[in-house]
């Protein structure tokens, strides 16, 4: 009870709140939980209005027929599963998200180690520079990349041709197009992993490494038996967050390929946009965008359960 009824500060009682008049109101406002709630209220309103309400509305939309006049349950989801293109979109999104997250995590881990081993002065400079891709608005950087991959006037092809090599159809060939969008996603997202891993590395007690060195452990053994276990939670959380965000990616694919060629770079968000906005079938678009929700929710529960378990073990 002490938590909820204790005064904001000892001096408050003597100052009092005479203008409020009511003793009950004074007590109410003195509660920490009340103040906390009031301070969070703007955020709660924003989340309810811009996240929770649209989420539930899209669930409702996904269960309507094309003209939004009839409730059809899960028919939209059944319909999607029967379509070749949608099945391809599921496969592509999985390839896109899993490979992008894997490489982001790998590059983030390597660069975090490299930076962590730099002198403190140099670290700041490198940290700042390597964060640049993450700071630039994604739509803008995607446009920059699109220019580099431009089907007719690609800057990369210009270099390749000037070195005597054949040009590459970065966006014209479906497989190169997949590579290109994954590359851009990795470029954009790797700094997030870098900064998280760097923070985790800094929290590993130096004494552990010293003890391991005394025992004759080499660099790999230190990494495997000290660094990795100490970073497991942060790795799990960053992978989870990144997986969710990458599964929902829209900008990169929409700007660079629009889902083509031959629908072979579509991901859920771009395919949903095509069905819902361009073709005017909002319920089907909503169903597409919600398709991964249960799978990601289960993944989130499992990963977070692991994080909690390890947290308890450490605690």
């Amino acid at each position: 009870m002490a938590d909820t009824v204790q005064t904001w500060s000892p001096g408050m009682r003597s100052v009092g709140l005479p203008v409020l008049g009511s003793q009950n109101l004074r007590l109410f406002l003195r509660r920490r939980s009340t103040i906390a709630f009031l301070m969070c209220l703007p955020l709660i309103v924003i989340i309810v209005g811009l996240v929770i309400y649209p989420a539930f509305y899209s669930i409702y939309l996904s269960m309507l027929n094309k003209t939004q006049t009839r409730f059809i349950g899960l028919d939209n989801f059944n319909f999607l599963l029967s379509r070749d293109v949608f099945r391809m979109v599921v496969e592509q999104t999985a390839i896109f998200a899993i490979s992008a997250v894997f490489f982001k995590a790998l590059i983030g881990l390597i660069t975090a180690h490299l930076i962590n081993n730099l002198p403190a002065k140099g670290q700041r400079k490198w940290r700042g520079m390597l964060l640049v891709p993450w700071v630039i608005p994604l739509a803008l950087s995607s446009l920059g990349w699109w220019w580099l991959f431009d089907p007719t006037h690609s800057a990369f092809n210009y270099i390749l041709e000037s070195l005597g090599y054949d040009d590459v159809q970065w966006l014209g060939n479906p497989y190169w197009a997949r590579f290109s969008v994954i590359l851009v996603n990795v470029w954009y997202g790797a700094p997030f992993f870098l900064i998280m891993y760097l923070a985790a590395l800094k929290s590993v007690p130096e004494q552990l490494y010293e003890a391991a060195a005394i025992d004759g452990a080499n660099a790999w053994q230190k990494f495997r038996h000290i660094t990795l276990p100490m970073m497991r939670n942060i790795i799990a959380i960053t992978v989870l967050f990144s997986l969710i965000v990458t599964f929902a990616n829209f900008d990169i694919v929409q700007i660079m390929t629009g889902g083509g060629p031959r629908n072979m770079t579509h991901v859920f968000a771009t395919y949903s946009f095509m069905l819902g906005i361009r073709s005017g079938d909002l319920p089907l678009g909503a169903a597409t965008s919600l398709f991964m929700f249960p799978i990601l929710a289960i993944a989130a529960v499992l990963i977070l359960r692991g994080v909690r378990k390890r947290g308890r073990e450490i605690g």
Partner: protein
Amino acid sequence: MTDSRLHSRSREVSQSKVSRRNLLKSAALGSAAVIAAPYVKGAYAAGSLSLGVWDHWVPGANNTLTKLCNEWGAKNNCQVTIDYITSQGEKDKLTAAAEAQAGTGHDIMSHRDWNIRIHQEVLEPLDDVVGKLIAQYGPISPVAEYLAKIKGTWRGLPTTTGSQVKPCCSRFDLYQQHAGIDVRDIFPADESKWDKAKVDNWNWDTYLTSAQKLQQAGFPVGLAMGQTSDAVDWTGALFNSFGVVMVDGKDNIKIDSDETRTALEYMKKLMAANPPEVYAWDDAGNNRWLISGKGSGIMNPPSAWAVAKRDHPEVAAQCWTHPMPRGPKGRFVGQLPQFYGVWSFSKNKVAAKDLLLYISQKDSVAQLVQASSGYDLPSFKTMYDLPTWQTVEPPLGTVYGYPPRGDEQTSIAGAPARSEVGAQIYNQAINTVMVAKFTQGNEKLDDVIKWAENELEGTLRV
């Protein structure tokens, strides 16, 4: 009503006082009702009207529409406000979708391609406006009718602004030099001088032969084969000219036909004469190809020519816009009209309709066409005699062949299926994906047709 209730009500009335505030409020409401309610064309009629209009890419073209709307507003004492909304990133479509869902927004909204069908439930019937214009100017474009006349009711009015067709835009110097074809001789800037034999000879076989020669000379034609409208439109026109029907008006899937096989076999040869990057082009890809000087021809409105005129005048001076090649079933060009729709939740529908009628008159249309250097295309064939298309240069008469003339018919990919089905076919680019699978992916013809059948079956979902 019982006596007691009557009594209590009369007591309430008698007890109410006529305060200064109530009096002013009543007077204000009365004035507003007098001013706003009875909108009569040509009479003094205050009020306001808001438009959400496609943002024209031609500098200055928006100003002409604003001028016309302000003229009408001044005559009718109505304040007109216009928001020009870009189509980049489909922002105009997103805005329309948001307004339709929210049930509030502009009074008049412009809609591209299939959006009238999408929002038909919340669009006011415009039969009276379209009927008057048809009575004045004759038959309207069948593509516009297909897209905006739903269950016998016009839900949108075809605009001049932004409406377009996508015929051939060719480099006549390269065609002459490398393919031995003078497109200016076939299609001079005066329809009465067109020689039927020469025009008839401009067919897909001739086009293929010339495309192969131009490729050998290092100046290939650039025919977009991505999944955006430029690609879908010209491919749809070619399919029509070969007699390909994807889904008929009675929901029968007709894609598995000899016509489809012939068209796809033809496409295999034609796409081989194109640069490989056409599969990745968006709607600007073909424009850049022509403007760069590498390309000898594209299928596009005169926007590519207009940009070349600004950035590479030497290329623009060699461009000639002219009809599409003819196929076994006729000569077709892809048409993509835009429409104005009046939301059913608009507060000033009568005024909105009158404004639409005003800006659709031939005098207004002439100004809009002139402001866009001939890019904007009205949906009435009787307006194709406007002087802009003859006078625009360089070279003089370069866009004379832009409006469909001679035996060229307009078409849209997805037709003649029900427009709900056609919208899916068009927006999912089923025709270009088929071509890309067969020509770029080297999939078997039967497999491609089977894939298309499966996709078309999906479009029939109710």
